[in-house]
């Protein structure tokens, strides 16, 4: 039996000195872990320098929540199809809310493209031989008798009737369909000469340069120069090959003369014979040369054939050439010297001294000679970005123009107003190794949206990489080390429609992207005062205001900038705590109002063809993820720009000196450790208490606290404290106080704010008339240009030939201000309304409770701009802010208002001298002083007072959750196990979550909430990572507790917590989203290029059995497929994009990236396909006689027809005798030895040979002969 060991517990052992040391060590260990955690927390907490986009950051969150597209604005909304509109239009799509108003008939609940009757296709007009694209089925198949084909592009691969060839009509040619050629030939009574082998318009037109006229001799020996076809039509005989009517050999009545003539449809000057026929090209040296009057001499062998200017003004040679800039005209009409013979001359079609640089009002600054057919860009002002990439320079009201020279006349084409089009120019090309100087310009769409869109792609987007669109540039803000970021901005920013209140309110959101706050940090100077510690450049107007204004101006017509007349206004921005823009920068802006020599949007000639517009239905980037659908979506999307801006934390570590406690050992070690911990906590607290913001001083104080604590702790633990500890503590505190006095203390940060708003024209209308001055039509006045010149400018008679910019009448009185009852939040009332102001109160007459969402407003009896201030001011300009943060001239002015509680105000106030009583007093007497000015600057000198008193008092209501991101019941991707979730509360709060609904204090997980001192109009944000999710539905409960500043204080009990959890559900997809099929796949063959194909994508799995939105990648953008742009919802698992143009792909191998998303999952797949061109007519591989039939075999499926008379097979295929066999490789016809078979075959793409596929002559003794 084992002896039991008895442990004796003695009292002195438990309470003795050694025991005390042990307890102390245990206590130290426990406490030190907390101290360490606290230190780490403090050390890793950033200081409060950050880039704040106060308004847009909220919008950006809402954007994330609703996650709706930006572009296109209308097409991505649900569209209804109207078959017949009230204005008699056919098959137009309208937004569903609009459709019934516009439609006189049925409004279909789908887009027209998905409607059987309104689907767009190719309308073939068989009587004219014309093919019309984008034609509604119902309209095409009306009683006018069109034939509708399901291909909106009229692609010849689908509608072979639309294949064009060269139709020779006498001496004229046209590139048309065979049916049209038949019609035109019939009109001229000519036999059809359709050359299907010519598939290029240029090649066809070149035939026109050949002189196909020959001598057609009549029975009475008279003669006319006609084409063979014309001659046969007229007299049934052929022309005499190569001969002129004046030929002696022909013995006609026509003889040479000393006259010359022009010929309709021809460029050259011709000699004229005595019968009035045009003979050979005029060459004065050949007037008596008999040979020159005998046979037709080709243009290329005529005089001056290689002349670069087409023999302009030559007295001796009439070989004019339109494309080189000359054309036959009477010398008087051409204003030239008389030629040596006759009166016709090669007139100059170029434009001498054409306007090259023209200001916005039509004044020509410089000129330049231009060739016929040249086009070039002319601008109103400086354009695009300067060399240093600082800002987009196009001034307000400016426009791009394309000028062109046609037959000596300069034509002016204004590009789309509001700079929705930019003019881009190529100055020449290299042809066969020779540089040809020939400007070619186009007005092409300004893709400014794509630049803005880049900023919505998220915070981690590399702007340098993504902002590479040809209309975009990276605007770099580099104000200070703690305030720098990049933004993708348009080179030629868009113009705002200043006259449209709705558009301008939207424009405000664009400008607000540049509203930023820079926090300047200070540290205390030794011996008093504060000195800038961080972001000091934000206080310098020359840096902060300049750069922020450059950003503001680059986003649109925003900020302080100039109009086309060089008038600068600065009501488009406000700054706080920093100066306004310096005059030298304003002067530089003013210089931008004039066009700059040589400054053009340049492009390669080779690229011009692709710059005419955007691909049909590409819709400028209908990207539901990155682009928007409605104006609202767009607006909100713009807010997301804020996300993309790189935020540079200015955090500096404080302390983190964990090793300090590692001193000594045993009890000494423990004492030192706990002492260090306590000391550092005390030091850290003192930094806060004393308001030390300088990281170095904060660290020093913490270290001193730590050291002192460690020493005291060690001494206490080893029992050596005695009377030593207290002096050490006192010394440490004194050192800290000295530091505080000389190097630390209260140096509150300064928030410097730049607010960007829409640019406003100067008041009044003194310059309106300048818009009408467009000299000789070189520049045109427009609504945009007119309204940029003054607030009182009005563009009238739009659309008439008397468009004018006039000045509105000034009534000379100030706007009358009244309360705006329409916008007042419910449960509130206006009281004590007089002409001098009114009060806003709760409906029960009490002052307004904290955190009550209040919206109130004022009306003005005419459009006016209103400003406010919380203190009385002497002038309008002195007033601090715009009413409702809007600088627009409006009738209805609205102001959202959220009054923080007195407690919050005190908790967040920087000024320790302000007492609760002070705040309460301010709240009770909260007055908003208001002035409004009309477009002429008439304003109320006596301020209009709005009395908004706040009600202080204990907060007894729990907070509530106003929104979540993702939305409640959102779907998450396959295999998701955790998700970062954001919630928004109506008042500052701390929040927790759990999978069961339980008391706030019992919930296991906490949200991290943003600084409650930051203003929040739409709610305070908290975020947490919800984890442990499984497939299917996952339920969570959230609860919040208000007044977080009371946490851990004696007043903790005053906080109000939710008594019921917020039920939040997320559904994890059970199967992945899969792209099952993409068409095209493999090889796609075309008879001619460019062609089109339909992109089809099938999806399965995911959130709802494959219902998704699918995109194809185009350049850097994901373009939403056409089928998915018709609804906000995921409607289908089959997605299509019709009319993809092969011109945008390679002949050969191609790859197209596809992405599909269903709100929870994303799937990617590549489509690889080959584009193959078959433009070769079928070949006859064998011909033989069998069983009394002629057989021919072809190398591909084709159909064949023959004629027994057309030796060159110039007959129309449809007019030939069709061979049996149909569309196969074997074709038969009856065997007739009396006939020769002129056979031509064509394939599925209507590829025909330019002559015969084969000519077959049958013999009795031999099978056949062919050649």
């Amino acid at each position: 039996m084992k002896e039991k060991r008895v442990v004796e517990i003695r009292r002195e052992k438990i309470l003795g000195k050694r025991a005390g040391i042990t307890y102390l060590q245990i206590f130290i260990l426990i406490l030190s872990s907390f101290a360490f955690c606290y230190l780490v927390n403090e050390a890793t907490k950033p200081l409060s320098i950050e880039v704040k986009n106060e308004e847009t950051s909220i919008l950006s969150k809402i954007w994330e929540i609703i996650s709706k597209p930006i572009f296109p604005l209308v097409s991505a909304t649900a569209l209804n199809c109207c078959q017949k509109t009230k204005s008699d239009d056919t098959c137009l799509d309208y937004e569903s809310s609009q459709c019934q108003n516009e439609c006189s008939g049925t409004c279909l609940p789908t887009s027209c493209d998905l409607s059987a009757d309104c689907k767009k296709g190719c309308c073939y007009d068989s009587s004219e031989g014309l093919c019309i694209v984008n034609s509604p089925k119902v309209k095409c198949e009306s009683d006018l008798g069109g034939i509708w084909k399901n291909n909106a592009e009229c692609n010849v691969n689908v509608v072979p009737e639309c294949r064009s060839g060269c139709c020779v009509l006498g001496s004229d040619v046209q590139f048309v369909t065979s049916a049209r050629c038949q019609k035109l030939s019939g009109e001229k009574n000519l036999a059809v000469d359709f050359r299907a082998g010519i598939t290029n318009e240029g090649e066809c037109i070149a035939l026109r340069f050949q002189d196909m006229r020959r001598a057609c001799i009549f029975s009475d020996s008279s003669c006319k120069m006609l084409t063979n076809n014309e001659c046969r039509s007229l007299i049934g005989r052929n022309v005499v090959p190569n001969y002129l009517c004046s030929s002696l050999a022909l013995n006609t009545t026509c003889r040479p003369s000393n006259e010359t003539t022009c010929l309709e449809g021809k460029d050259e000057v011709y000699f004229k014979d005595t019968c009035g026929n045009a003979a050979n090209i005029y060459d004065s040296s050949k007037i008596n040369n008999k040979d020159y009057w005998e046979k037709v001499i080709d243009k290329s062998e005529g005089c001056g054939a290689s002349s670069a200017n087409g023999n302009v003004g030559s007295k001796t040679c009439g070989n004019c050439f339109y494309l080189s800039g000359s054309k036959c005209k009477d010398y008087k009409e051409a204003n030239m010297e008389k030629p040596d013979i006759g009166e016709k001359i090669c007139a100059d079609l170029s434009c001498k001294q054409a306007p090259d640089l023209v200001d916005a009002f039509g004044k020509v600054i410089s000129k330049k000679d231009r060739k016929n057919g040249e086009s070039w860009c002319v601008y109103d002002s400086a354009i695009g970005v300067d060399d240093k990439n600082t800002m987009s320079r196009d001034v307000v009201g400016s426009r791009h123009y394309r000028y062109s020279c046609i037959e000596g006349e300069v034509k002016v084409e204004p590009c789309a107003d509001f700079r929705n089009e930019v003019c881009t120019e190529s100055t020449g090309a290299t042809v066969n190794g020779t540089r040809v100087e020939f400007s070619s310009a186009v007005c092409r769409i300004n893709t400014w949206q794509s630049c803005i869109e880049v900023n919505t792609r998220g915070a981690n987007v590399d702007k340098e990489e993504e902002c590479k669109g040809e209309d975009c540039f990276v605007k770099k803000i580099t104000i200070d080390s703690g305030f720098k970021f990049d933004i993708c901005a348009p080179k030629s920013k868009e113009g705002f429609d200043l006259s449209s209140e709705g558009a301008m309110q939207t424009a405000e959101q664009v400008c607000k992207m540049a509203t930023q706050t820079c926090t300047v940090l200070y540290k205390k100077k030794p011996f008093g005062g504060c000195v800038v510690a961080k972001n000091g450049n934000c206080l310098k107007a020359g840096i902060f205001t300049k750069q922020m204004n450059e950003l503001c101006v680059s986003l649109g017509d925003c900020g302080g900038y100039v109009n086309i007349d060089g008038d600068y206004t600065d009501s488009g921005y406000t700054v706080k705590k920093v100066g306004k823009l310096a005059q030298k920068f304003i002067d530089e802006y003013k210089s931008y109002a004039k066009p700059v020599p040589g400054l053009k949007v340049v492009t390669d000639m080779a690229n011009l063809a692709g710059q005419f517009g955007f691909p049909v239905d590409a819709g400028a980037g209908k990207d539901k993820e990155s682009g928007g659908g409605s104006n609202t979506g767009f607006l909100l999307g713009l807010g997301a720009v804020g996300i993309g801006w790189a935020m540079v934390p200015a955090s500096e570590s404080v302390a983190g000196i964990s090793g300090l406690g590692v001193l000594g050992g045993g009890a000494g070690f423990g004492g030192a450790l706990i002492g260090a911990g306590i000391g550092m906590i005390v030091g850290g607290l003192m930094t806060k208490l004393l308001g030390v913001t300088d990281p170095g001083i904060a660290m020093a104080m913490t270290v001193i606290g730590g050291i002192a604590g460690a020493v005291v702790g060690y001494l206490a633990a080893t029992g050596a404290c005695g009377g030593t500890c207290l002096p050490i503590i006192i010394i440490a505190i004194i050192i800290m106080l000295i530091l505080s006095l000389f190097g630390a203390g209260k140096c509150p940060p300064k928030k410097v704010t730049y607010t960007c708003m829409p640019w406003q024209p100067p008041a009044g209308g003194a310059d309106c008339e300048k818009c009408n001055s467009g000299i000789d039509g070189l520049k045109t006045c427009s609504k945009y240009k007119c309204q940029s010149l003054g607030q009182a400018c009005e563009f009238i008679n739009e659309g008439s030939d008397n468009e004018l910019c006039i000045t509105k009448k000034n009534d000379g009185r100030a706007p009358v201000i009244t309360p705006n009852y329409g916008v007042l939040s419910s449960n509130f009332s206006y009281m004590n309304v007089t002409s001098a102001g009114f009060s806003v109160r709760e409906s029960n007459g009490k002052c307004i409770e904290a955190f009550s969402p209040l919206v109130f407003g004022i009306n003005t009896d005419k459009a006016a701009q209103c400003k406010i201030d919380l203190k009385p001011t002497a002038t309008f300009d002195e007033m601090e802010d715009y009413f409702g943060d809007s600088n627009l001239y409006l009738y209805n002015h609205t102001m959202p208002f959220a009054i923080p509680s007195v407690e919050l105000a005190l908790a967040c106030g920087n000024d320790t001298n302000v007492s609760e009583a002070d705040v309460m007093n301010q709240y009770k007497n909260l007055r908003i002083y208001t002035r409004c000015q009309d477009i002429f600057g008439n304003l109320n000198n006596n301020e209009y007072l709005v009395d908004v008193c706040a009600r202080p008092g204990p907060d007894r209501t729990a907070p509530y959750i106003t929104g979540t991101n993702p939305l409640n019941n959102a779907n998450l991707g396959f295999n998701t196990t955790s998700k970062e979730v954001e919630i928004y509360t109506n008042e500052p709060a701390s929040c927790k979550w759990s999978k069961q609904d339980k008391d706030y204090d019992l919930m296991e997980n906490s949200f991290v909430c943003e600084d409650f001192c930051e203003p929040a109009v739409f709610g305070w944000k908290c975020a947490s990572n919800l984890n442990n999710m499984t497939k299917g539905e996952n339920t969570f409960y959230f609860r919040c507790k208000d007044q977080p500043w009371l946490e851990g204080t004696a007043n903790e009990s005053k906080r109000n917590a939710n008594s019921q959890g917020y039920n939040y559900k997320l559904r994890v997809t059970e199967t992945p989203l899969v792209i099952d099929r993409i068409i095209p796949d493999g090889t796609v063959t075309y008879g001619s290029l460019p062609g089109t194909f339909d992109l089809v994508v099938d999806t399965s799995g995911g959130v709802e059995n494959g219902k998704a939105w699918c995109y194809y990648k185009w350049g850097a953008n994901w373009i939403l497929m056409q089928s998915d742009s018709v609804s906000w919802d995921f409607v289908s698992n089959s997605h299509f994009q019709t009319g993809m143009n092969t011109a945008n792909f390679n002949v050969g191998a191609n790859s197209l990236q596809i992405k599909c998303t269903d709100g929870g999952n994303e799937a990617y797949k590549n489509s690889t396909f080959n584009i193959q061109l078959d433009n070769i007519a079928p070949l006859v591989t064998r011909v033989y006689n069998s069983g009394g039939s002629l057989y021919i075999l072809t190398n591909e499926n084709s159909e064949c027809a023959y004629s027994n008379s057309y030796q060159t097979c110039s007959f129309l295929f449809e007019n030939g005798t069709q061979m049996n066999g149909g569309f196969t490789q074997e074709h038969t016809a009856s065997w007739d030895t009396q006939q020769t078979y002129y056979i031509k075959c064509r394939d599925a793409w209507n590829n025909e040979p330019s002559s015969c596929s084969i000519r077959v002559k049958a013999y009795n003794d031999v099978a056949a002969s062919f050649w």
Partner: protein
Amino acid sequence: MIKKRGQVTIFIIIGIIILAGIVIYFLIANRTSIGIETPSISDPESYIEKCARDAASDAIDIMLPQGGWIDPLHYRLFENNKVQYLCYTNLFYKSCVFQEPLYIAHLENEITGNIDGKVDRCFSELKSGLIDEGYEIDMGNMDIKTELGTGFVRVNIDRNFVMTKHGETRKIEKFKSIFNSPLYKLAIVGQEIANQEAKFCYFEYVGFMLLYSDFNIVKKNVGSGLNASKIYTIEDRYTNKKLNIAVRSCAIPPAF
């Protein structure tokens, strides 16, 4: 002195000759003009031919600046003309939908619809005029058709017209009027412009003019936002007749 008198006489004679010349010119000119303007009712074919020609010419003159419509319903005001949209979409960023794919047939119908009543009135006037001259007139129903071709307009009128006087009867069944007009050529170009706008959102009119120098084309971007439209004015360089067409395709909203 004698010399002076002689000079005066010569001046008077020259003056009289000039005056006489002017009078004769206007007389001849007037007579010629009257002869062209008013064919005799005794030649019913010429009478109706001129009537139809005038009516159709008037209709074309109305239609040309209005995009090919007599009474445009959905139009863009341009230089005081209501230019009907040939291709239109109310949406932004979208290419236009052809509103009159069979444009030539539409123009023919438009002319026919406009001249129908006028030609019928001419027949009535012809009838009453001939009755005044002692004819008995028997008129059947009228069927009128317009045909457009390159450089011409043809109006075909099928109507039994029987005129009897002194037992002598003359029966006319078909009347026709052909006259020169660039309408067809202009319309084909207009349709091509709209076609390319519908397909590419763009028409390269400068390049087109280089290839087809018979036409002078001017493009104007007019209006903004919902009213943003393009007006193309196509001019036939030989006759200087102009056709306006309006297109709203791939419009971009101002400020969004």
